């Protein structure tokens, strides 16, 4: 990936266990460049989710820093940074009301005020996934796990982020829904291959191989093989 732009850089991330000795993350160094599809694999409890949350600046760190395009992400830069780098939870929370309500909700946030909700574009996305616009009028609590995850992904994608941090997005889904989610992310990446990147956390090696061009292993909070890429 030489020549591609450095998007996200983690410099020496350390996070202590809440009580007692030891580290949840130790000296994690990682660079995400435009066009990269990274996968982070490791057994449960190895710190995959914590690493992804740290990359999104959702949790405080004991040491280390996150840089976005060379600048440290601190203070009031954080919300704007999260406009470009969106973390997706394993179990999406969509809130009350219809699917469309949920998709419109982010536009009420200050960082997205300048953007406008584009229903037509969402309908096109849904068509691509073999769904019709009817899904937008459904109540959120009527959605299956797979549908909810797809809506959560569309909610993030419509905001035109540059990096998606995907925390086992298909862990609770059946095979069909898993493929639909993988396809959606693949199509999204292909639309603008150098200006986008994904970091996908998975406990499933096969899936990680399918969705990534580079795999990193996390063991007890430490990235194996030097950690830098």
């Amino acid at each position, binding site marked *: 990936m030489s020549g591609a732009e450095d998007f996200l850089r983690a410099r020496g991330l350390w996070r202590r266990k*809440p009580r007692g000795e030891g580290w949840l993350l130790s000296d994690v160094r990682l660079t995400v460049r435009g066009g990269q599809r990274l996968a982070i694999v490791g057994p449960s409890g190895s710190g995959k989710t914590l690493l992804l949350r740290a990359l*999104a*600046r*959702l*949790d*405080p760190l004991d040491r280390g820093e996150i840089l976005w395009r060379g600048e440290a992400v*601190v*203070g*009031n830069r*954080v*919300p*704007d940074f*999260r*406009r470009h780098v*969106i*973390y*997706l*939870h394993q*179990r*999406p*929370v969509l*809130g009350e009301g219809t699917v469309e309500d949920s998709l419109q909700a*982010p536009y009420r*946030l*200050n*960082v*997205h005020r300048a953007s406008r909700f584009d229903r037509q574009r969402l309908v096109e996305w849904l068509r691509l996934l073999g769904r019709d616009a009817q899904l937008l009028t459904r109540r959120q609590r009527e959605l299956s796990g797979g549908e909810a995850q797809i809506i959560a992904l569309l*909610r*993030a994608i419509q*905001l035109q982020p540059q990096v998606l941090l995907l925390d086992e997005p298909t862990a609770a889904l059946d095979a069909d829904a898993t493929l639909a989610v993988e396809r959606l992310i693949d199509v999204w990446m292909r639309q603008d291959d150098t200006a986008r990147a994904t970091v996908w956390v998975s406990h499933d090696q096969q899936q990680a191989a399918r969705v990534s061009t580079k795999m990193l292993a996390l063991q007890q909070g430490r990235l194996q093989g030097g950690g830098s890429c």
Partner: protein
Amino acid sequence: MLNPTYIELDASRVALAALLILVNGAISLALRLGMARTLLVASARTVVQLVLVGMVLQWVFGDRPWFVVLGLLMLMTFIAGVTAVQRNQRRYPGIWTDTMISVWVSSWLITSFALLVVIRDMQPWYQPRYAIPLLGMVLGNTLNGISLGMNALTEALVTRRDEVESLLALGASRWEAAAAAVRHAVRTGMVPIVNAMMVVGVVSLPGMMTGQILAQAEPLQAVKYQIVIMFLVASATGLGTVGVILLGYRRLFNADHQFLYDQISE
């Protein structure tokens, strides 16, 4: 009070009222409610606590210097703060400081306003006959609002954790992510005093007003005092509740727009 205008109660008359509690105790024994012992303890506590506070008040009202009055007011405020924290089911580092600051600032600000601006004509300004009961009433309600509000805030943040974090992940500022929980908490803290203001005089006659009437005050004078008290209590409760919730919000959401969920302990 050399010539009280009301009928004085001696110990024998108080004892007559205590007979009523004995009747309650007898009913409890007959129906095996298991309440007799609790009733006895509660009655004994009522007598001991009130007699003690009466003795303290009698002593303080006996023309004591300002620092004695001030010391007593501080002690009352401190106890209110401790009680407010202890009523919380969840804690976070800094809850003691936040609660003490909120109880202290809201109750003292509002009581000072009452003493110096609303009632104002007493001599000296720290007249304990006014300052102590006014602060006591303000504190009793404020600590209630503060503890209800804090409980509601931590409860909402714990149960809606995923929602709060989803918002943050999509670019919400800490305020945007917490606003729903903060508003819910403030409303919860204000519910008792707003309800009390809605029904005052219709469903219940407030104790202070009743007391003044029994002590031969003109009912309309007693009503004016009661209105003032209701407004003082409502504003102090609002100030204290908003204060403690905003301070708590600042502790649980840092300047990097992160929700410090791990700081909340049961």
